[in-house]
């Protein structure tokens, strides 16, 4: 294996799967993945309809439990679950299927982009109701758009019930709307603020609190229907703030069209291009993005009106992306790469969600809307690395009859340092040798 091939596998991909055939031309292999189609088949077939059905079933179950409690004790509280946790069942099936895809995908660069954009538009299961929707969110709002225009992804994300529920826009009501007048409820600025700060222009654009409030006004009515015959996105005209709104110096009309126009404006804003370019370069080149690389990706986004496929291809063409070892694997990167190396699928490692949680990166469970950090300093705390070592030692028990040196060559090729190989050769057991490979700086980086 040459350095370019190894770098394509670990930097752009998710780590080699077993001793899968090596690409003849690493650059073309990566660019070919961008041309698609995405071969992912998510076994659980996530969908918003299924996710919302689980949300509705669980709510109905809780309602009945409350009613039963009230009837028997007169009390309003303790509510014991009456039946299955539908939301959790959907989440578990979707998590298993998505992890399975990550372990087995033949297009790992494309899958890394799916991870990247899923994290960029974080929806965390910490928020009630989101559990059964994250899988659907990825499959409906993220995956179809990783090589499309950013505008299309942003629109799909902002209309998705998962995001509308996570950042509570579903509950936002225009104070002067009929619903606002009737219920005295008001704006919830959460989605509007995070959309500007985390998803598009970033604070570098210099917007004001008035812009945030006005954007929240524009987005009123973007909600989720849980009662109708086909639950899903619903524009609630009755909750929408009437009148046109000035946002970042521009007038936007009332109605759903105003939101679409504002999102289109944000998606194509120069600050958005700069912000996205910086994050992409951080993901694929270095924690401190080199300015020249950022400028290049920013220019591609500007000139292509936000073509994410073009921007991803431009990353492949940046010489800096081929400098080995400048990125540190997050726990998810690390565990998936380890499991891919032994060619495992999710049935062989059913505890994967628990493993990720134990290493500090529980799946789809980021603590805040800014998602998981992409910087080594946030993952390399002493105890975090100790846990990584301990997990690796447990995992290394699976080495079976594999030759550790062959695994090392398969995983890293020329990226393996001679001292790592020497240490492995001096280990007292295959398991110890494999532990040394997994915990070497060589394998911990990508």
């Amino acid at each position: 294996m040459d350095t370019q091939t190894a770098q394509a596998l670990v930097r752009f991909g998710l780590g080699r799967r077993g001793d899968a055939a090596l690409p003849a031309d690493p650059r073309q292999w990566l660019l070919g993945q961008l041309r698609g189609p995405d071969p992912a088949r998510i076994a659980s077939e996530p969908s918003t309809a299924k996710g919302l059905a689980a949300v509705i079933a669980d709510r109905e179950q809780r309602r009945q439990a409350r009613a039963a409690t009230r009837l028997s004790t007169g009390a309003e509280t303790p509510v014991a679950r009456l039946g299955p946790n539908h939301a959790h069942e959907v989440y578990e099936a979707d998590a298993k299927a998505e992890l399975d895809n990550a372990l087995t995908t033949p297009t790992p660069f494309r899958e890394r982009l799916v991870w990247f954009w899923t994290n960029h538009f974080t929806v965390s299961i910490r928020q009630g109701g989101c559990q059964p929707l994250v899988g659907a969110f990825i499959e409906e709002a993220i995956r179809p758009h990783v090589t499309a225009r950013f505008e299309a992804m942003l629109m799909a994300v902002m209309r998705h019930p998962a995001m509308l529920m996570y950042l509570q826009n579903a509950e936002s009501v225009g104070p002067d709307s009929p619903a606002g007048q009737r219920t005295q409820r008001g704006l919830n600025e959460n989605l509007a603020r995070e959309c500007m700060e985390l998803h598009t222009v970033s604070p570098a654009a210099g917007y004001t609190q008035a812009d945030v409030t006005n954007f929240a006004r524009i987005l009123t009515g973007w909600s989720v229907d849980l009662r109708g015959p086909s639950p899903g996105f619903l524009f609630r005209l009755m909750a929408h703030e009437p009148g046109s709104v000035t946002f970042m110096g521009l007038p936007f009309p009332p109605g759903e069209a105003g939101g679409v126009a504002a999102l289109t404006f944000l998606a194509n804003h120069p600050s958005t291009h700069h912000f996205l370019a910086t994050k992409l370069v951080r993901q694929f080149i270095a924690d401190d993005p080199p300015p020249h690389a950022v400028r290049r990706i920013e220019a591609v986004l500007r000139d292509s009106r936000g073509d994410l496929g073009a921007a991803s291809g431009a990353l492949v063409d940046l010489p800096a992306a081929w400098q080995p070892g400048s990125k540190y694997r997050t726990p998810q990167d690390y565990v998936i790469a380890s499991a891919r190396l032994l060619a495992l699928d999710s049935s062989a490692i059913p505890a994967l969600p628990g493993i990720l949680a134990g290493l500090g990166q529980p799946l789809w469970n980021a603590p805040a809307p800014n998602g998981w950090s992409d910087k080594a300093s946030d993952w390399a705390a002493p105890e975090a690395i100790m846990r990584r070592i301990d997990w690796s030692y447990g995992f290394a028990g699976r080495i079976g009859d594999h030759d550790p040196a062959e695994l090392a060559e398969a995983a890293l090729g020329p990226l393996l340092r001679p001292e790592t190989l020497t240490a492995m050769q001096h280990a007292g057991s295959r398991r110890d040798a494999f532990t040394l490979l997994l915990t070497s700086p060589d394998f911990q980086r990508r």
Partner: protein
Amino acid sequence: MPLTRRAALLGLTSAVSLSGLAGRASLALAAAPTDKRFVVVILRGAMDGLTVVPPYGDPGLRNLRAVLIPPLPGQPNGLRDLGGFYGLHPALTNMYAMYQANELLIVHAAAGPYRSRSHFEAQDYLESGADHRLTSGWLNRAVGALPSDQQAPTGLALAVSVTVPLVLRGPAMVGNWAPHGFSTPEPELYARIAQLNHDDRLTGPAIADGLRARAFAADVMPGAPDEKDRYAFPALAEAAGKLLGASDGPRIAAMEINGWDTHVAQMARLDQPLRQLDAGMGALKSALGPAWRQTAVLVMTEFGRTAHVNGDNGTDHGTATVAFALGGAVAGGHVRANWPGLGPGKLFENRDLAPTIDVREVAMGLLAGHLGLPSGALAQVFPGSATDAPMRGLLRA
């Protein structure tokens, strides 16, 4: 596999009670149509027979490795005397009691059929039971070859480890019980990991800090997880004893302990795995209860270590070493050897204790004498060694 129920019946509360224990030790069990119990313990990393059972009566020993021998018998923390020529390492207190009760037999200057000095190859050959690598282990083939006219116990086969060790892998059914939770490496392996990361600006300082912090936590919080892990092998051995002791339980178990690869500071480093092994054998005996009378345990390692001390007060990969046979069914209380001597010209390739007994003879002797393996089956269990006679006299009449 209804193992959880079985484990619960045996008082193992749940798989969780063993979580984290598979770190440096693991266990595999197999059912067999016999009331005899047979356990194989593999010491991975090459145990130094000359320190664990030093032939203190051999004048060559002190010349070779004075710094690696515990004090002589009778001195404080000295060797336990085994009859005037050999001594037993003082860490092995339970095993010395077994020796005194004629339940521990020591086979010295023994080795497998390999001379490669590579851990992985040697372990594979030891577990394959051949001078080349096979896809099944000798213990599994032995289970398959046992006479089946006796009523088979309903006990289930299982491995308390993420994988079944090669010695018990093969066509005969062996289950797998992987404890969840984290396990931790030997201090030695932590040290190697820290060394390998030493020059990395990110991981180097973090690992050093992490190790320091954990040592501090262990100091200020006695009984913290480290303490539990220190006793991983005894806990697994106890679990094995309970499972094997049940009347309808499995009959065959394989266990392993890492941490014997003592290239550096051997006297200090060897203490911990020896204490684990010793506590484990004691726990196994207690947990087996009356079934201990029907039990034979074979403890073996892939090879021995150099007779000379290296530059780090440790030893490097060698050849012959000791094996232990112990249990209520074993005719112990002595050391069996064709002692080759340690004087000039006596060492194998001028560096190692010379091999005089093939450990497969010991294994064959136990399989034939204890489990009743037909002599015709020995050739398939240990291919290529059919001419070697099983060692006799290993078992009580």
